């Protein structure tokens, strides 16, 4: 079984401290992704955090379960996020092939460093979020279905 799937199952069992009573991590992740729950993000070099409406993931990223299609990628400002694109060995931003896991994903959100240690563009905010919320977002993305 893939580590990402194992993590999802673990999160489902443990629940998320940031979520409401009985709320699954994937549901919490969906809320965070789509802006139903606020995320605190800041542009590198800025002194103030962005309002939640400007820092939600869905503003820049589309998600899906299938391999990235050119049409979906073209319509998305940021990379299309699919389980394959995240957990598969993919060369990103000129770096060597690399895969995300939950820890690498959280490092990217917080510090802007991808799994190949390449810094992502400044237009991607850096986020302050709990481990539980970060794992909820990860669980949401790796279980995502094509919209």
């Amino acid at each position: 079984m893939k580590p990402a799937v194992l993590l999802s199952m673990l999160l489902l069992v443990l629940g998320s401290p940031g979520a409401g009573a009985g709320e699954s991590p994937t549901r919490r992740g969906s809320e965070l992704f789509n802006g139903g729950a606020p995320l605190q993000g800041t542009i590198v070099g800025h002194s103030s955090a962005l309002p939640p409406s400007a820092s939600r993931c869905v503003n820049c990223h589309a998600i899906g379960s299938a391999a990235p299609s050119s049409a979906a990628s073209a319509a998305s400002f940021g990379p299309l996020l699919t389980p394959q694109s995240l957990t598969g060995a993919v060369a990103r931003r000129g770096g060597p092939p690399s895969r995300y896991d939950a820890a690498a994903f959280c490092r990217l959100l917080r510090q802007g460093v991808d799994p190949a240690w390449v810094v992502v563009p400044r237009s991607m905010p850096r986020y302050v979020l709990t481990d539980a919320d970060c794992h909820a977002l990860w669980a949401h993305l790796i279980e995502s279905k094509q919209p």
Partner: protein
Amino acid sequence: MTHDISPPSRARRRMLGGAAALIVAPLAASQALGHGSFGPVQPALAAPALSLSDMNGQRVALTALLTGRVTALQLMFTGCSATCPIQGAMFADVQQRLAADDPRLRLLSVSIDPLGDDPKALRAWLAKFGAQASRWSAALPQMKEVDALLDFVRGRAPGVDRHTAQAYVFDRQARLVYRTEDMPNPPELVRLVKQVAARG
């Protein structure tokens, strides 16, 4: 612990510094030419003769919007969900920081999508960010003049948003005097606008 710099050491440092300057200066100059879309604009460039719709749908010359004020201009469009919300938040922050300052320090959001935007959409976009009419307005160029505007400010960018997230600062003579980095830090933009205003 202190680090004394003996006279020979100082002289050596000066020599190395001088050598480094000789090597770096031409490089810096060529890089500045190669990346001319960021930084001071020297000599300042007069705004082109473009006609825009203001938020009431009235045609107004870009130079008329800029003359007599110091203006930070940004490119945007209301259907842009990625960088434009961040740009709107940045200008809202700048507006707040300028609250007690001269009303002739202005913010102007110019849409690059005349087909998708209209004055009503621009008003709604500004309202979303709490724009105050006395400080922050929006305008819409004619379709045939979008390219001229993008070329003038050097505002093109690849990807779905098609424009940079820079701010372009104009002086009171409607001349472009500064192109900021992408997504400038609001306090820095405020400082820049005030510096331009102080020049007279």
